[in-house]
């Protein structure tokens, strides 16, 4: 766990920093190498991912990028906004449902079949007609051409108006988050690790459980209007909310000023509450562990000092005793070697007798 955590942050950190750009301007090849550390965890390359998974891995990477860029006080959304890319999370990405289950390879094949087509959303640069491989395409282009569109807030509000269907998948989401939060914490012993928790759920929870989770969501009876995929919004809400919570002071209850919260008002708040409570308990637990260590160490030091003191005292006393013994022995020897001394004294005493 520890290792993975470090890996994930490691390669993602320096890359975006030096490039100063958005993840979306990376090509697939670059993106894959950026996620190099995660590659082992992913266990598959992009070709075999479905679009949903791809988006998630992008968000994961983006979030870690935001972490790297953001100062402790900046919120995740704010930091992402500074990147200045066309496709940003604050205007969330939505995925037509038919697309979300397709693999990247399938989508790519469609592209090739269609030939050079204009982007479906505005803001796409003119497509060069020859694009030999998927690896050289930038993420942005790919997403735009695949028909992933950017929601504006109005659309988000509309999505919010579509009622109640999010409720079903949420508990699953909450569970997976819970588990992965725990892992994230596990690997992170110090406070800097708290940052890792923010995106840990997306990375671990999704890789571990995403396969089970997503088909369920996709197959949900949402013959609804607008086909705005519920799971993306939920995932987003969770990851963004948490990233924000971690960056600011974790002890204070933080209101999450995100549209995601508005979108999933009821159960979203519940998830937040649970997550927050868990985090607070975790932090307390960590503090308590630190105190316990300090207590033990202090007591050990005290006892060591005591032992040292007693040793010195013992050595001193033993030396003293030896000296005393020596002195006694000398006296005895003196008496033995010079027996007359005493006799003389005795004689002298008798000599001072009356006669």
């Amino acid at each position, binding site marked *: 766990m520890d290792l993975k955590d470090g890996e994930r942050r490691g390669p993602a950190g320096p890359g975006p920093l030096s490039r100063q750009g958005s993840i979306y301007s990376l090509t697939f090849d670059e993106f894959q190498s950026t996620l190099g550390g995660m590659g082992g965890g992913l266990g598959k390359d992009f070709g075999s991912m479905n679009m949903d998974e791809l988006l998630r891995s992008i968000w994961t990477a983006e979030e870690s990028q935001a972490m790297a860029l953001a100062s402790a006080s900046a919120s995740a959304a704010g930091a992402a906004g500074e990147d200045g890319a066309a496709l940003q999370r604050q205007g969330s990405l939505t995925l037509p449902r038919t697309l979300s289950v397709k693999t990247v390879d399938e989508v790519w094949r469609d592209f090739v079949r269609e030939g050079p087509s204009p982007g479906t959303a505005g803001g796409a640069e003119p497509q060069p007609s020859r694009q030999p491989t998927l690896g050289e395409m930038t993420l942005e282009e790919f997403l735009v051409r695949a028909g992933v569109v950017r929601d504006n807030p109005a659309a988000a509000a509309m999505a919010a108006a579509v009622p109640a269907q999010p409720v079903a998948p949420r508990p699953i989401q909450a569970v997976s988050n819970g588990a992965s939060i725990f892992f994230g914490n596990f690997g992170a012993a110090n406070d800097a690790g708290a940052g890792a928790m923010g995106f840990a759920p997306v990375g671990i929870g999704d890789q571990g459980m995403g396969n089970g989770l997503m088909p369920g969501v996709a197959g949900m009876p949402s013959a609804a209007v607008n086909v705005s995929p519920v799971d993306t919004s939920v995932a987003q809400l969770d990851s963004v909310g948490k990233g924000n919570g971690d960056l600011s002071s974790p002890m204070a209850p933080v209101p999450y000023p995100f549209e995601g919260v508005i979108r999933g008002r009821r159960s979203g708040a519940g998830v937040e509450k649970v997550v927050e409570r868990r985090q607070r308990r975790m932090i*307390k637990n960590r*503090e*308590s562990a630190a*105190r*316990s260590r*300090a*207590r033990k*160490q*202090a*007591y050990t*030091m*005290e*006892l060591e*000092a*005591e032992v040292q*003191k007693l040793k010195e005292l013992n050595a001193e006393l033993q030396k003293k005793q030896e000296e005393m013994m020596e002195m006694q022995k000398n006296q005895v020897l003196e008496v033995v070697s010079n027996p007359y001394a005493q006799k003389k004294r005795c004689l002298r005493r008798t000599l001072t007798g009356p006669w």
Partner: protein
Amino acid sequence: MARFVDPLVVGRVIGEVVDLFVPSINMTVAYGPKDISNGCLLKPSATAAPPLVRISGRRNDLYTLIMTDPDAPSPSDPTMREYLHWIVANIPGGTDASKGEEVVEYMSPRPPVGIHRYVLVLFEQKTRVRAEAPAERANFNTRAFAAAHELGLPTAVVYFNAQKEPANRRR
């Protein structure tokens, strides 16, 4: 001979209760027959009666002893820091705390939550003082008290830990 100061730093007694000082007086604290060493864990039931606090020092010097709990009511949320347990003033050097004047009556440790530290701090007085008992035991401040009575830095500190004893569940 003065005691080591390091355990006090690691145990965060220096920092949270008193400032860094150089011990100049030897103080031994004994609950019953056993001397306590810094950081040892005692049962609250063993601390019901006031400890025997013997100090070195010259007969003409007077000392003030303060016992506080910086972890009240809970170590992770010490809103009552420090909780005052005992103040004895005007203790002549070379004697024990019973020869001084008890300003605040001894109250035995009763930690409700978590493992609390109980800190006994000894100050040397400049003159004989008439210390007044603080109105409340909660939110006592050893530093402020020392400043108010011109006690300066401590001359000796001993602390121990205590934790609520588990209730007798087995019957």
